[in-house]
């Protein structure tokens, strides 16, 4: 059995977002690129599942749809412990385009378990995982916050509005994961970094498909007015303002 973890590359979460080209494109100057936080956690859990499987899971593969610039991020996933990687050599234009590419990767590689993140921290599509499961017609769960392999079945916990569910799902299976799937991402050790250099990173051409959506323009949120500060002994005054003036409470 093989697990595929889909990883996207996003700006570091502390990045101050700026746009260029008349607000038509992200200003990438000085941006540090990282593995999308969810995908890093998904990879961490995939490796744990493999290690606990007693050989039933042969390999954990990572796949990215992206240009050659994404390779350092892919190498980082290999350093963390992925066995090999696939890069579909095309820019990630929209969710449909990416999902179609990944569906091809899953089919040609025979992956029975696929993991994606809840959303990419850049354009917050929250789309690729759900689309990919639909294209593959795989059994699928979203907001997965715990996952284990149990005798050829998946046992998963998921968040629902106001609670949690534990479910059992048959393979083939795609998990869209979120917080809880792992708490801290696995950090590459020196040995992992050395080994990552020689692990296989296969580059494949994209299949032919189009885009269905396009971000035509960006804007930054309106800045808020100055904060009205109250001293520690003016709690009553603040409550008064919130009640009588702002009518919030």
């Amino acid at each position: 059995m093989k697990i595929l973890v889909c990883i996207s590359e996003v700006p570091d979460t502390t990045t101050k977002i700026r746009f260029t080209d008349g607000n038509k494109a992200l200003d990438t100057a000085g941006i540090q690129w990282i593995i999308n936080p969810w995908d890093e956690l998904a990879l961490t859990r995939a490796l744990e599942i493999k290690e606990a499987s007693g050989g039933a899971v042969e390999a954990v593969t990572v796949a990215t749809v992206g240009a050659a610039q994404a390779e350092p991020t892919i190498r980082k996933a290999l350093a963390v412990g992925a066995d090999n990687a696939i890069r579909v050599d095309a820019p990630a234009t929209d969710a449909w385009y990416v999902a179609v590419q990944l569906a091809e990767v899953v089919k040609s590689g025979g992956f029975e378990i696929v993991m994606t993140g809840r959303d990419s921290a850049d354009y917050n599509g929250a789309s690729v995982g759900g689309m990919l499961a639909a294209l593959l017609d795989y059994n699928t769960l979203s907001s997965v916050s715990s996952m284990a392999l149990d005798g050829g079945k998946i046992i998963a916990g998921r968040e629902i509005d106001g609670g949690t569910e534990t479910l059992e799902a048959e393979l083939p299976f795609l998990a869209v994961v979120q917080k809880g799937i792992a708490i801290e991402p696995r950090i590459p050790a020196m040995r992992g970094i050395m080994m990552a250099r020689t692990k296989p990173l296969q580059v494949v051409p994209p299949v032919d498909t189009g885009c269905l959506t396009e971000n035509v323009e960006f804007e930054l949120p309106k800045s808020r007015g100055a904060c009205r500060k109250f001293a520690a002994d003016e709690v009553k005054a603040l409550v008064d303002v919130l009640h009588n003036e702002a009518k919030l409470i």
Partner: protein
Amino acid sequence: MSVLVYAENRDGLFRKATLELLSYAAEMAKAMNTHVVAIAIGCVQTDELVKLGQYGAVKVLKSNPDFNILDIKAFAKIIVAAVEKEQATVILFPGSINGSALAPAVAARLKAGLVTGVVALPTSFDPLVVKKMVFTGKAFAATKVTTPVKVLTLSQNSFGVAEPGTGAAVVEEFGVEAAKSAISLVEVKKQTGKVLLTDAEIVVSGGRGLKGPENFGLIEELAELLGAATGCSRPVSDEGWRPHSEHVGQTGKIIAPVLYIACGISGAIQHVGGISSSKHIVAVNNDKDAPIFDVADYGIVGDFKTVLPEMIAAIREVKAK
């Protein structure tokens, strides 16, 4: 032509996110010169279904009442069948956990363009252009959809619930033969009686500045007094002081309440991303230079240990009047 709304129910009742979505759909249908049809999957009583008419649905498709857990594959097939039957050109989902899971499944099966996290009515209908949140609250994008059928999810609390009218929706049985599900429920745990973080008008949130789980009683007390939901920063849920479901921010919940009260939260960029759509922000922090004050509208510089009990007492007083 029609606008199809996925009317999500929670234990047989329509939640606020569904009513907000119908309010949005009604405006969209007006602009497109068409009507709104809703689809409800799972067990909902007829009078509850009829009520959707008050928010603009002319018809409600009542489907598969025996479905009590979300099987994305099965639900998506039902919704796709409804899209075809109603010749819907716009399909709307709430930005709730389950709505967000269904939208891409339906979009892919229809090869329809999808925009998630929509925060306003379209600025153009031909071609369709809508504003959505990107970079987890740090920016917005105007996104164009180029397919004839469009799927959108609406960010919760971004549009508001319209005043209910007097309309009554026609209820129509819409059974779809579903294959045996390959997903089965082992266990479910639900909190009852608590305001949902993503639905709440007011959220009271605590950070690492509260020092330990024992001090969250103050957060709960204030929240209860205000009819608010409780939230927290990431380290607080990572430490297990509070459940993961309360974690607010880039890697937790993104919320848009009318009032957000942040206590002992420094205001890290990843936290602020999750609250930047709040209409008003109040911060309680003993460091006058804490970055949370840069995004707050009101602030108290002080120790939560004295500020929160005083705030609770003062609010009790104004509420009693």
